[in-house]
């Protein structure tokens, strides 16, 4: 019986043409679609960012009107958070989880298909508002990605409703993806793989999935309240009707802070896979890594109001949120310590994934440190809503989360395609990306400390030089990503054959499968000792 089934699988019965993608229930095809979708959104969101930076090259208004500038910052933020980082991580989870735990596929393949195909609808709707705005029909959402009430309720443009329903769809998609991840990890691990033997990437995604399930519904609730405030006469956030706009910020950040860990925990997992491979040593402190991830997830629920220190909180509240935020540095420090210790006395080589991983460790830690500065209440009153904040979250999201995604793509691309990527091009991409992102984001610390507010299209003369440096960095960074696109296409189309191990001494079940990995990963579960 077994032999018969296996014979069938060598045929990889997949429908041809577009049907293969529209009706796909295969974790690899869906993973690829997620990743390509994220890549497309990366270029769209990036183009918006380049428009922003071009406008900020000089003081005064050159390219865009202030109201359109606000739409650019809003959509840039929304697309990068919900359209790039999150789908890219879900794509990586789809590709890797079944291979890493020795399963044939995800546990809920049809739901997997649906959760992907909701995304083009969601972002089509969101981007439609921008297209309409460019064509002169009203304004796209212009209240910032945090959509604070009453900016988004009383003063929101008509397209806010597009935004609301698009967030609903994204939320449903994320929640279904998370349910799938949890069901897969709980039920489909190979015999012998108990929880404390799972690869760290699997662990971080397991915890991330719980975070998604806990907070995406709260976001859905927040936008639903907005919707009823706008159209059905409720007053959740309207002071005249007994509501409170500050409460919006509490609800939003109750979602928002766990959300930022949703965007970084899988990154921690990726780095914890890559660093041991290229150090040729097992990961230092596996169990402390697991516990640190769990503690960060727990702490993420009790720190949200550090985004709101200037709203007029009582001192006791400010102190609580300041200390609990500082506490996060402890488990995060454990992780950084473990990565460095893994490298310590290892026989290191510096292939592109390792370069991105090391850049991640260094630059993410810098973003973490500016986070610590921001959590100090008296200092935050100066930093709040300045470019210092912009510098902080771009260090953790671009040189943090985005770098980890690039590292993961380089690390697993040979496994996915069966070909080695062009190492020379990869190194070129890394150095251009790494240097330009620092040219882009580092000066923002200085202009922020000097008092330049975020989300403004015009600024005082003394900020000109640093803004120009940042803009130059932005354009180099943006165009360097075309190398990445070219490299991936080249690798998909051909190249040196990859071995099943891909990297010398690489550990993990995914490296026991041949490269490219078969359509159904482990049709007979491997034995894990």
């Amino acid at each position: 019986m077994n032999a018969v089934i296996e014979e069938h699988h060598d045929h990889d019965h997949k429908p041809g043409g577009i049907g293969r993608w529209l009706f796909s229930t295969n974790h690899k095809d869906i993973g690829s679609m997620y990743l390509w979708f994220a890549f497309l959104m990366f270029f769209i969101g990036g183009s918006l960012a380049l428009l922003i930076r071009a406008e900020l090259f000089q003081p005064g208004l050159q390219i865009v009107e202030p109201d359109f500038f606000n739409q650019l910052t809003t959509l840039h933020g929304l697309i990068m958070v919900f359209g790039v980082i999150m789908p890219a991580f879900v794509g990586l989870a789809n590709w890797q989880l079944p291979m890493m735990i020795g399963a044939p596929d995800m546990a809920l393949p049809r739901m997997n298909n649906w959760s992907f195909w909701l995304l083009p609808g969601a972002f089509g709707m969101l981007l439609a508002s921008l297209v309409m705005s460019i064509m002169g029909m009203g304004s796209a959402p212009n209240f910032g990605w945090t959509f604070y009430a009453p900016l988004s309720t009383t003063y929101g443009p008509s397209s806010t409703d597009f935004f609301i329903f698009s967030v609903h769809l994204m939320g449903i998609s994320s929640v279904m993806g998370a349910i799938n991840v949890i069901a897969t990890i709980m039920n489909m691990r190979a015999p012998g793989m108990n929880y404390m033997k799972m690869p760290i990437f699997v662990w971080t995604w397991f915890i991330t999935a719980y975070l998604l399930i806990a907070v995406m519904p709260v976001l859905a609730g927040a936008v639903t309240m907005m919707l009823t405030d706008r159209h059905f006469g409720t007053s959740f956030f309207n002071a005249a009707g007994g509501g409170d706009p500050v409460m919006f910020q509490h609800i939003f950040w109750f979602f928002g802070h766990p959300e930022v860990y949703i965007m970084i925990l899988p990154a921690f997992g990726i780095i914890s896979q890559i660093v041991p491979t290229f150090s040729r040593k097992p990961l230092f402190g596996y169990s402390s890594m697991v516990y640190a991830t769990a503690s960060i997830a727990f702490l993420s629920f009790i720190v949200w109001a550090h985004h709101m220190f200037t709203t007029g909180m009582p001192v006791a509240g400010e102190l609580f949120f300041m200390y609990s935020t500082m506490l996060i540095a402890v488990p995060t420090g454990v992780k950084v310590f473990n990565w460095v210790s893994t490298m310590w006395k290892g026989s290191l080589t510096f292939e592109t994934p390792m370069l991105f991983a090391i850049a991640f460790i260094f630059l993410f830690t810098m973003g973490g440190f500016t986070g610590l500065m921001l959590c100090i209440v008296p200092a935050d009153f100066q930093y709040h809503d300045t470019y210092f904040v912009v510098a902080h979250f771009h260090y953790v999201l671009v040189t943090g989360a985005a770098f980890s995604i690039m590292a993961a793509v380089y690390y697993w691309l040979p496994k996915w395609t069966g070909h080695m990527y062009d190492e020379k091009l990869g190194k070129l991409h890394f150095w251009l990306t790494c240097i330009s992102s620092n040219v882009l984001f580092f000066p923002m610390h200085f202009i922020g400390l000097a008092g330049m507010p975020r989300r403004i299209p015009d600024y005082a003369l003394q900020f000109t030089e640093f803004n120009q440096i940042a803009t130059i960095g932005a354009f180099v960074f943006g165009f360097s990503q075309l190398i990445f696109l070219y490299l991936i296409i080249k690798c998909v189309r051909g190249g040196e054959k990859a071995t099943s191990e891909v990297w010398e001494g690489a550990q993990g079940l995914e490296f026991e499968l041949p490269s490219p990995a078969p359509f159904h990963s482990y049709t007979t579960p491997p034995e894990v000792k």
Partner: protein
Amino acid sequence: MTAQSESNIRNPDNRPSKNRPVIRKLLGLVLLMFGFGYALVPLYDVFCDVTGLNGKTGERIDLPVAGTIDEKRLVRVVFLASLNEAMPWEFKPQQSFIEVHPGKPTTVNYIAKNISDKDITGQAVPSVAPGLAAAYFQKTECFCFTQQALEPGEEKIMPVTFIVDTQLPANMNELYLSYTFFTSQLNNKDSSQSIALSLHNQDQKL
């Protein structure tokens, strides 16, 4: 063949699916958290009430028949008035401050005038600073308990009667009572939208 072999790959022994209970629990969690988002609304109010944070003053209380008056202590209450957005009213207190003995009911007047050519209904929202003093500031009569409607050009005196609690902590000798008038959304949907629109237009003119 497809359906058959697909189900066999994922479930080689044809055991009852282990996924169902997991999905059921997780969907329950999703519903719970959606509800929790809404529960944050009353929880927020309760939290502010219990802790006295946010400067929210309490509901109307009945005038005490014979309360104790702390003759030895004088507390200064400063009155502030502001209008939300571009509300076309004039609104100010008749006196900028008063010194009262804790426990003694005191009445002061605010004056509001509609300077537009339209009927406008407003709702005043009170706030006390420092926030922790809000729990010791009680109102027996206030124009903020109901909505106030003014015809074009109409001027109205709006009284508020309050008692500063004798339990007011000794380190608080000055309280700030602030009222902000909002255009009532329910009765003036059009006017509030036209204000929003005019602000939006101002943005575009920038």
